[in-house]
């Protein structure tokens, strides 16, 4: 985390752009810009700025946004729900679709079903998220008028609206995960399908479904769980694009806005938060291995 903190802080200061000039507006004079720089503390030496920021972070204070005159923690809290809802619904949708598809593709290896699933997953990998987003909007929101084009409704304001506005973004973002997880599931299941214990189970006369669920899928789960966990990093990038296309006021939009505005405190805090989430998810994935495969010990 320390490395991330130093890296983010340094990169932001090395990036061209001056938040004071942005805040002052296009018609501001050099003197007005200079006054704002002093007020933001940006005229101090960079090491001094870093020490002040780090001290505050260690005390749990991420500072105040340069632009919004709000505590960064407050800004982040406002944005967590949309991102969390989008991420969770995307993962649920992706896992619920991709794992069965991958298992079926492996089970029907070499058939048109297998080729169809793999073809779709190549497509899912290849098409950019924003293209999928616009295509879905055109079809479901403009032409069919089934779903809204954009926006987010908080859960407390009604579940119907909440769900209605989550369907298209989740579908958009899930496409790449379906592709990724389906391919890994297929490869992993194929490897286990040829194992001795599967042959034994079939020889014992077990039906195909219990064999697949109990003996194949469980033993193929470790790589699948790994790719789901690693996919969180990909999800962060996807959330940024998806939230922009669907105008969802989540953390992805917040970081885009903050980067464009050179809002240093906000960018630093959100990147730190994302890195914490990434580390925690990887830890959880590692711990899950011990449940899935008792041979694994830490």
């Amino acid at each position, binding site marked *: 985390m320390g490395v991330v903190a130093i890296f983010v802080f340094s990169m932001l200061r090395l990036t*061209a*752009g*001056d938040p004071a*000039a*942005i*805040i*002052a*507006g*296009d*018609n*501001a*004079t*050099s003197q*007005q*810009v200079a*006054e*704002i720089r002093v*007020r933001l503390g940006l005229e101090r030496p960079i090491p001094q700025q870093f020490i002040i920021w780090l001290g505050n972070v260690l005390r749990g204070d991420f500072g105040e*946004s340069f*632009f*919004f*005159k*709000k505590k960064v923690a407050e*800004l982040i809290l*406002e*944005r967590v729900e949309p991102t969390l809802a989008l991420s969770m619904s995307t993962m649920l949708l992706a896992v619920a679709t991709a794992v069965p598809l991958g298992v079926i593709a492996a089970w029907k290896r070499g058939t048109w079903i297998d080729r169809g699933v793999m073809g779709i997953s190549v497509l899912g990998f290849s098409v950019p998220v924003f293209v999928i987003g*616009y295509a879905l*909007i*055109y079809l479901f*929101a*403009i032409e*069919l*008028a*089934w*779903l*809204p*084009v*954009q*926006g987010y409704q908080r859960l407390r*304001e*009604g*579940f*119907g*609206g909440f*769900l*209605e506005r989550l*369907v298209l973004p989740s579908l958009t973002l899930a496409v790449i995960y379906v592709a990724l997880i389906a391919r890994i599931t297929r490869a992993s299941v194929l490897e286990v399908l040829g194992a001795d214990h599967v042959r034994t189970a079939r020889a014992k006369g077990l039906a195909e479904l219990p064999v697949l669920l109990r003996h194949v899928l469980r033993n193929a789960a470790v790589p699948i769980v790994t790719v789901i966990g690693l996919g969180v990093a990909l999800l962060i990038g996807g959330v940024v694009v998806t939230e*922009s*296309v*669907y*105008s969802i*006021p989540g953390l992805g*939009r*917040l970081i*885009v*806005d903050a980067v*464009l*505005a*050179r809002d240093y405190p906000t960018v630093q805090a959100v990147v730190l938060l994302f890195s914490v989430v990434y580390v925690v998810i990887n830890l959880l994935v590692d711990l899950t291995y011990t449940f899935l495969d008792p041979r694994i010990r830490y």
Partner: protein
Amino acid sequence: MRSVRRLAVAVLSLAWLAAGTPEPARAETALRVVMHSDLKIVDPIWTTAYITRNHGYMIYDTLFATDVKGEIRPQMLEKYDVSGDKLTYTMTLRDGLLWHDGKPVTAEDCVASIKRWAAKDSMGQKLMTFVSELVAVNPKTLRIVLKEPTGLVLGALGKPSSNVPFMMPRRVAETDPGTQISDFTGSGPFVFKKEEWKPGDKAVYVKFAQYKPRGEAPSGLAGGKVVKVDRVEWRAIPDHQTAINALLAGELDYIEAPPHDLLPVLKKDAGIRLEDINPLGNQYTFRFNMLHKPFDNPKVRQAVYYAFNQKDFLEAVIGDPAYYKVCKALFPCGTPLESLKGMDGFLDSNFEKAKALLKEAGYDGTHIVLMHSTDLVVLTNLAPVAKSLMERAGFKVDMQSMDWQTLVARRAKKDPPAAGGWHAFLTSWVAADILNPVMAGFVNAGCDKAMFGWPCDAEIEKLRDQFARETDPKKQKAIAEAVQVRITQYPTHIHLGQWYQPAAVRKNVDGLLAAPVPVFWNIQKGN
């Protein structure tokens, strides 16, 4: 289709295994708008950003305002009197003006507001050099006494664009001008819902029921500000395509600035109309950095003046002639100071003349560092056109691409171009900001006090000072023409034509007012 949509949602809701809760009640007449930018800063005196200025017009009022003809008219004032010697202005507030907290607006509030504004705004600063006394005579009357006559009093207090002298309660106006305000009490026609303001999502305004509009019909930013909707929501949708899709689907009512290349999509839709609410439009501008070679030499800058023509720029960016106008006048066409004096031969892409001037000036082939902003649609194509025309005139151009915010930071640097500085960039001005030589930022040639580019010319400054002191409009126009002529000899910038930005509105919305700033009074929304 709507019933299918409801059915789909209902089915999905059941699948989610949760019971629905009732939708929250919404105001009947909520206007859902996408402005040109998200509202991030809410102090219109602290920043010159246009979105913050627009926010100011929602919640604050002004002593004077500019009408659709460009004339200054009383707004919060019942009347104003000017003494015979033109040194004393006595202003009387209208009856019934209230702050959003219910307290009456007083002259003391206005005095404090003018002082805070004048500490930040360049025109306000200029005005204050003429003022010997600014006092509240009684709760409804304020007085400005001048050291010598000037035509700036009404022009400055009624200026339509940033920074606008908005009136605030005294407790707010006494905030240090360098510190952002945190109390958003105004006396304007809308109340800002601070608790609903979510930067990056939306800003919400509701009708101020106790606002007392003037009796006259609305005209530009002046006249009666009658609010006809209950609520206005400024939605932050940064993606243009998404905003347009939302307008097409009826999720939005109004987009302030749809990109020109997407206008054909909107024109095709029967439920949408395009409306140009800012008849003065905007002006493209090429700005020199006059601190460094070769642009420290006026002859080299004149060569650029001869090399350029406006049509190439306007075609490259706007494309449709319905939304641009070639206008050689320095002060915008359609405004009182419009004139072609001294412009013969300039802006005609006379490359031979440009080459001759470069030779005469001894241009040594120094690469011109031209900053090219790539992320604002209305600016992106300008720099490549400038590069091409300059190269045809004999310049060597190093066009450096960057995002607008990087450009904004870099243009403030006085370093040599080879050391992170710059030679030139292109931008756009709202015409309302450049109506005369005192107001127009790029005409300021006050050396270190000038805007980035730092022109330094005693003659231009002398003319600007004369303009500020002059009260006769005819004589003011003669001075403005002299400024224009001088700028062809000592170019501070080059004006590259006017362009217009239509708003896109759904057809059930009407009453949009023609004004240099998008305002939301008088707008009504049908079913």
